[in-house]
Each structure stands twice: as C-alpha cells, then as structure tokens.
C-alpha cells in the first residue's frame, strides 16, 4: 500500500513536470480545432445560396416564357434545394463563370419555348468550366433530364386536354392559346409549396451541425491529444516495473496508478482547451443550439457528462501505448487510430453521409461509442453503456499485457 501511494505520488509529480509542454500542445490543438469549428459554423450560417449550385440563365426573360421556366425550376422539389438560377446577360455570365461566382450558365435562344411548341429543335447551350466531373456536372445532367421530362409530360397533358376539348367541346377552340395553357399547367401542378412544409432536420443525427461538430471535434481532440503524452508512456522503465512487481506491487496496481496520473493530466488539458474554446466561442459568437440558454452551467454539465467518454479514450490510448511500448510505434498507432476512427465514426463529416455498412462499423468503434455518448448528452438522452464496456476492456487488456511482460520478461523491440 505504501509503495502504491508513493508510486502514485511520483507518477503525478512526473505528469506535473510534463504539464507545461502538454498544455502548450493542448492549446495549439484546441486553437486548430476551434478554427475548423469556426469555419464550419460560418459555412453553416451563411446564405443558402452559397451551398447551392449557381447557374446563370441568359435569354430574354420577358419573352418566350423563359421567366416561367426559371420560376418552375425554382419550385421543383428536385431542384429548388440544389440550384440557384440567376437571370443575367451573356457577358455577365461569362465574367461570373471565369471568376467562379457561377458554376455554369445556360443560353436560352430567342423563341425557345415557341419553337418547342411547334416541334422545332432549338437547343439550349450549357456553358461550364468542368462538365465531366464533380457534383456540379451530375446536377446539370439531372437538371437536363428534369427539364426534358417536364416538357414532355406537360406537352402530353396539354395535347391530351386539347384533343379532349376538341372532341367534346369543339366550339371552344382549344388550340387557340396553347402557350398559356402550358404555363398554367406547369405552375398549377408544380407549385408544391402550398401542399406541404419542408423542415430540414439536418444530416447530423438529430443534432444541429454546431452541436454535432462539438461532439466530433471533442472526440477527435481527445484521441489526438494523447499523442502529446507520449513521453509519459515511453519514459517508463521496464526494469523498474519488474522490481516493483517483485516487491509486491503488481501489474494491476502499476497500470492503475499510471492511468490515474494520465487522466489527471488529460483533465488539465481538457480544462485548458474547454476554457479556451468557451472564450473563443463567446468572442466569435459561436453558439451550440442544444446548449443555448444554459450559459456556462450548461457547458460545465456537458463537460462533466463527457467524462466517461474521455476516460474511455484515455484508456484506449493507454492500451495502445502498452501494446506498442515504443515511441515511434505508439505515436503512429495512436495517430492512425485517431484518424481512421475519427473518419469512420463521423468526427470529420456527419456519419449519415456514409453507406449503411460503414455507419454500422463506425458506430461500433470506440470513437463511435464516444460520439454516441456525447450526442446523448446534448439531446438529453440517457448515456450509452458501451463507453464503459470499452473502458473496462482497455483497462483489463492493459493489465494483461503488463502482466505478460512482467512474467515473461519480454522487452519492447523498437
């Protein structure tokens, strides 16, 4: 017991000596994460038009029904969330395309609609920088298909109505004003705003994007931060571990005391990062909708609630260093583990962007369970138990590895 107490004290002292360097790394990491968060937040807050593909429309908006066409495209469910159609002259469109203010522009020839009505082929010209690749190209092809389907279906409907009227009500002359009939049809059928209300819940598993990224970046930060603690792990003397074990202070006690000092160091880092984050957030006007109105108390509650996830990620880092037992190996394994797990578990992008299979794998990974835990916290749901299961698993594995090394005298190879 005396050995355990002294060893814990010495490990804490050792961790304390490393604290300034680790705090410096923490501040740099936190600043980077805050910058990325700010960038994402600004993107999210900006006008919807910035997220849409911007298409210029060149043509006489007063004649030939081009304005009707634009109005229709802006009402269509399939395009109104993805496209922004901007009427302009060809000169303006060309300049805007070159300066990347537009993704593409369409040149609608004079009398296009009239020509279409009489079956004359007068194509619309599509001008872009890069039609072969990217989301823009795909959307343009979708747009062309939508327009074609729209025109064909409208024509079928109008021609059908004209024929029916001619057969049954010949005195009304149904062929007299085909254009007006077409426009009216399009607007009646396609003006869907009146039929239902669209609510965007976001792609972030019921969380707001700022809330989601708060979870993602906290998990990513916790995983990457452990790299700054490398000297704490690799500076351990195996000879000392063996002597302590021979003296009655075994693997479990050693792992536990070393882990406690690591966790306390981590808490200092998280506290520093949290303070920096909250100050920066206040200055830059960043808000987390899920925590809005709760003030500093809400942030503290979130921080305390996140402790199980942080403990689990610490246990994972501890386990990985115990497994590799070398500086280079430990850093590499920790870094790649953080990046791969962070990616698959949705720390960089909402996991809803991924296919079902990847989403399942990501959710089962330690980082995925940490994300799930944080999400539950923000949504006010009960926290998830897999975080504790992983914590116990990593601690047990760390003790077993230490025990194996002590018993067999196996040394690190790197």
């Amino acid at each position, binding site marked *: 017991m005396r050995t355990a107490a002294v060893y814990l004290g010495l490990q804490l002292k050792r961790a304390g000596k490393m604290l300034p360097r680790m705090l410096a790394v923490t501040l740099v990491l936190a600043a980077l994460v805050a910058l990325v968060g700010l960038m994402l937040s600004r993107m999210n807050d900006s006008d919807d038009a910035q997220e849409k593909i911007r298409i210029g429309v060149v043509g006489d908006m007063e004649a030939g029904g081009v304005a009707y066409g634009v109005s229709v495209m802006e009402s269509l469910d399939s395009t109104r969330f993805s496209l922004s159609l901007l009427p302009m002259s060809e000169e303006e469109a060309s300049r805007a395309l070159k300066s990347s203010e537009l993704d593409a522009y369409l040149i609608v020839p004079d009398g296009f609609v009239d020509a279409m009505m009489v079956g004359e082929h007068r194509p619309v010209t599509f001008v872009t920088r890069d039609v072969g690749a990217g989301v823009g190209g795909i959307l343009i092809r979708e747009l062309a298909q939508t327009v074609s389907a729209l025109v064909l279906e409208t024509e079928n409907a109008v021609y059908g109505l004209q024929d029916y009227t001619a057969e049954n009500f010949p005195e009304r002359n149904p062929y007299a004003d085909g254009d007006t009939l077409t426009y009216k049809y399009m607007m009646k059928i396609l003006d869907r705003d009146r039929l239902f209300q669209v609510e965007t819940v976001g792609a972030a598993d019921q969380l707001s994007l700022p809330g989601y990224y708060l979870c993602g970046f906290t998990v990513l930060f916790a995983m990457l931060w452990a790299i700054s603690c490398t000297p704490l792990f690799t500076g351990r003397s195996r000879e000392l571990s063996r002597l302590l074990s*021979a003296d009655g202070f075994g693997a479990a006690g050693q792992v536990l005391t070393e882990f406690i000092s690591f966790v306390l160091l981590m808490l200092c880092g998280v506290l520093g990062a949290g303070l920096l984050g909250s100050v920066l957030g206040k200055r830059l006007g960043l808000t987390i909708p899920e925590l809005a109105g709760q003030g500093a108390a809400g942030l503290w509650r979130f921080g305390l609630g996140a402790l199980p996830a942080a403990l689990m990620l610490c246990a994972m880092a501890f386990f990985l260093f115990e497994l590799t037992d070398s500086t280079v190996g430990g850093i590499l394994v920790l870094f790649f583990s953080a990046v791969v797990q962070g990616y698959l578990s949705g720390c960089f992008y909402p996991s809803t962007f991924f296919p079902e299979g990847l989403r399942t794998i990501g959710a089962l990974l330690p980082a995925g369970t940490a994300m799930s835990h944080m999400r539950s916290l923000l949504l006010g749901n009960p926290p998830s138990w897999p975080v504790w299961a992983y914590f116990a698993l990593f601690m047990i594995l760390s003790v077993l590895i230490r025990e194996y090394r002590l018993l067999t005298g196996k040394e690190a190879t790197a």
Partner: protein
Amino acid sequence: MEAEIIDIKKKYGRKEVLRGTSFRMETGSCVGILGTNGCGKSTLLKILAGVLACDGGQFLWQNEDLLKNAALRAKTVGYVPQGTPLIEELSARDNLRLWYEPQALEQSLDSGVLRQLGVHEFLHTTAVKLSGGMKKRLSIGCAMAKDPAILLLDEPTAALDLVCKEQILDTFDSFRRSGGALVIVSHDQWELSMCDSWLHLRNGVMHPYAYDGQLRHLIAELVES
C-alpha cells in the same frame, strides 16, 4: 548462514536456458558467475530476484523457499539489473523515496550506504541528467534500501570509469564484510577479483571455475565452451 540455489530451470519457448542450475553461498561470501553472452546468467539473477518466473527449482534461505515467499524475498534479496530502474524525469531523492522509508532515507544519506555511494552529491539532480556512474550508484542505493542479506549484481560496473568503479566495489566490499552475500554476473577483471568463488554457467548448468586472475585462461575456456 547459507543460501542454496537448487535445480533452477528455465525455458524460452523451446530453448532450455537453465537446465537445473545449482550452487551455494555463505554469508559474507562473493560468488562470481561467468559465461558467454546468452548463456542464461542474467536470466538466473532475474529468477533469484523474483522479476522472472522460472519453470522449476528452489532458492532456500533460512529453510524458506524465496521463490515462493515473495515477502521474505523482498526483504532478503536486493537486485541491481543491467539497465537503470529509475524514473528518469524525477530527482535522485524522488527515486529513493520509492524504496526507502523517510527516516531510513535520511539516515542512509547521513551515514549509511547512500553516503558511502556518494548519492548525496547529486540528490536533487534529475535522473535523466545523471552520468552512467551516478545512475548505477543510485540503482545500487535503491537495491540496498531494505538492508538485504543477499545482493544480486548484473555487471554492476560495466562501462564505468575507474574512480566510480572503485567507489562501487568498495561499497560491495563493506557490504560483504558486514555479513552480506554477493552474487556477481560479470566479465570484468576487477569485479571478478573481489569474488572468493567462481562458477561457469555452461549449457544451462553451473560448473566450478578456478579463476586465477588471468583473463586469457578464462577466454580460452569460454571459447572452448
């Protein structure tokens, strides 16, 4: 009093390093163990110190098997490994605190073995800044914290300068004169010359060796083995 090591066996995988190693030592004696690299000398010391499990055998002291009685072994046996069992980021004093009771530490620094080893000269220096000789002296100081009856030394003065070597060997000599038993694994002429019996570990078994102070005879035998 006598310590007896009986039939110690150890395998690494299929390789049988110790095949029944046995020897005796009296209190106040010094046993030197010789052998080629990888013959199992350090393994034997680790087993006797309790830092490595063996596959069979006994280490008898006062009718107790120290391999089974860990508490008695911890009080009886001190072990100085080849490496440095130190927390590098902490001072010499902090490292000593792990092994010494506070009062015993002050006493030893004042007039005991730590004073003799000269540890008080670098007490507040961080271990990472200590020279090889200082680290070795500190390690020996740690190993002697519980005033052991038997001290196991794995090449204790290898790569140290002559002054440091002399200081350490003087400490061992005092320890032996005060009734302690020493087991030294070594290839060093100075260390071997302070022993009063020598054993050659060959093919996992101990053989008595008549060391005459002539390293060339020893080398010839080692080459032959």
